[in-house]
């Protein structure tokens, strides 16, 4: 079977949706030459009326997408750097997200925000290494964080077809992933539905984005002693609480690994919800970035503030033992 890389999956999804629906268009910086490798070939295939290289005016082109979306287009907006989301938070959280309610349902804003490299790439320092998906889930913007190429394809397709704003984070730690897949079998993945990557009976590990692969590796390491179920929510908002509940019915023990800063990260929400509403037989744990983390430049320092496999392993062992 052919090999599908993560970025190629995003590219295929964009291309397929542009082919299928003439309303789909792409805005972003340096997308004509596809600096991020996601928009490769789109300008040539679909032309400058649908693939618009924008000046460095993120705030304007984000709201430009809102206006276009309210007027029959279905824009995908690419941002090369996750910290740009702080710059356009007003335009997403306060404009695009609020228009449907504020107009009493008179308009839809079908925009997809695409982050093809979120989180740390190691060595990109303080302003290029953020992973602010929890912010968007908190606001209520539909938020997806695919871990694998097939999910990246399927979730991007669903995001583009969705009638609300959707933000897709492609974690830098996942974009090097490749999968052997039958391209003809690639299909939309519905928003709000999690995926059990590995069934288990002792501890449920909820892993977000690239951390799914770390969780799977740790589950392998522990296989002889602890049976770990790896649950990938895939969508952080709306979250698949039903899927999580089903997993906890099986295990009753929970660890979350989440690349957010600790305070108000999605990991805290998952723990709180499980504690309030679900079956837990031991106190849960989470592994996150530290409170208020800003990623320092040096490799050792950058890595020191990201969740690690050893931290995850220790958390699983503690939760597995506690009662």
């Amino acid at each position, binding site marked *: 079977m052919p090999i599908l890389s993560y970025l190629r999956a995003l590219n295929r999804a964009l291309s397929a949706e542009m082919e299928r629906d003439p309303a789909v*268009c792409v805005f972003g910086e340096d997308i004509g030459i596809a600096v991020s490798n996601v928009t490769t070939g789109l300008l040539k295939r679909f032309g400058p*009326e649908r693939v618009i290289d*924008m*000046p460095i*005016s993120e*705030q*304007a*082109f*984000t*709201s*430009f*997408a*809102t*206006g*276009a*979306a*309210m*007027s*029959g*287009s279905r*824009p995908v907006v690419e941002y090369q750097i996750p910290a740009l989301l702080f710059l356009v938070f*007003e*335009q997403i959280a*306060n*404009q695009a997200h609020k*228009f*449907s*309610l*504020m*107009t*009493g*349902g*008179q*308009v*839809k*804003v*079908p925009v997809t925000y695409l982050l093809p490299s979120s989180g740390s790439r190691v060595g990109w320092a303080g302003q290029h290494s953020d992973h602010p998906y929890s912010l968007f889930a908190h606001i*209520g913007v*539909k938020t997806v964080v695919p871990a694998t190429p097939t999910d990246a394809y399927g979730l991007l397709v669903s995001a583009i077809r*969705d*009638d*609300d704003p959707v933000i897709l984070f492609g974690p830098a730690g996942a974009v090097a992933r490749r999968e052997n897949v039958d391209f003809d079998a690639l299909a939309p993945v519905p928003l709000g539905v999690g995926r059990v990557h590995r069934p288990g009976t002792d501890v449920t590990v909820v892993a977000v984005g690239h951390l799914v692969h770390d969780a799977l590796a740790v589950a392998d390491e522990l296989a002889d002693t602890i049976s770990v179920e790896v649950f990938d929510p895939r969508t952080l*908002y*709306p979250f698949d*609480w039903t899927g999580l509940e089903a997993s906890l019915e099986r295990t009753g023990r929970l660890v979350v690994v989440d690349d957010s800063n600790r305070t108000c990260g999605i990991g805290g929400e998952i723990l709180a*919800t499980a504690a*309030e*509403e679900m079956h837990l037989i031991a106190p849960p744990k989470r592994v996150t970035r530290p409170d208020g983390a800003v990623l320092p430049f040096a490799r050792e320092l950058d890595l020191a503030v990201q969740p690690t496999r050893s931290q995850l392993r220790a958390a699983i062992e503690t939760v597995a033992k506690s009662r």
Partner: protein
Amino acid sequence: MTDSADLYRTVRLIRRFEQRAIEMVRSGVIAGGIHPYIGEEAIAAGVCAALRADDLITSTHRGHGHVLAKGADPIRMLAELAGRETGLNRGRGGSMHAADVSAGICGANAIVGASAAIAAGAAWSHRRAGHDRVAVTFFGDGAVNQGVLLEALNLASLLRLPVIFVCENNQFATSMRVQDSTAGTITGRAEAFGIPAETIDGMDPEAVLEAASGAVARARAGDGPTFLECLTYRFDAHHTWEHIARPRYRTDEEVAAGSVRDPLEIQAARVPQAVRSRIDDEIEDLLDQARRFVDASPEPDPSGALDYLYADGLRGRAGTA
């Protein structure tokens, strides 16, 4: 063809709508207050008279005039201000967001300068679909120092979009005088991006209509954006809270001097008395009817507070488990 009486009717409707809305703020029927448009009516009336029904506008926190002039139903508009289910936005928008999308109003925005880029995107999308609609974005003098507006000017010029930037220079950004907020000139900002810009008398509805008609013709012909700086004066408060708080950033004498030229009087002088009387009566009847409609309209059901948040009807979890 818009005649003098049509313009008078729009100016008068906005003036009386605002005066009645202020009374309803005082009596508590309208919560949260309003940003009255009194004194600035010539701009909305003149600009919107130059537009077709299928052209677009984006409005502001001081938006009642734009929305009424573009053709929204005053009755459902008043119901929106009063937070009724029968309002334009089903009571979810209120004064600062009241809009009738079917009348070409792409939202009323409470963030200063935020809607210019939205208007640009809407204009682009309609052009791409083969329509010759133009989009007008209204904003005040306070917005000309907002980065996203300047970015939108650049984008509109680069893409040669059919957008008309209408700056309502009422001399104040809330309490800050324009000369204290704005280095250089307002039109100079547009000119820097290659956009033709003109400063016009924003108190005369017919002068505004003439300038706006020229800008609309340019935009419709594919010649790109135009910027109109309309000089005006806000006769009333920035927001009705000033009626209580009484902040002193301009003297009574200054307000009186600024209000000497009144768009309502300017336009009234062009319309025969008998015609005016008939129009005035019609407007009073309409606003009486609007008030009765408000009183007869149900308040929204609290269980629907987050209806319309998502296009697909998604409901998040309640605030208590």
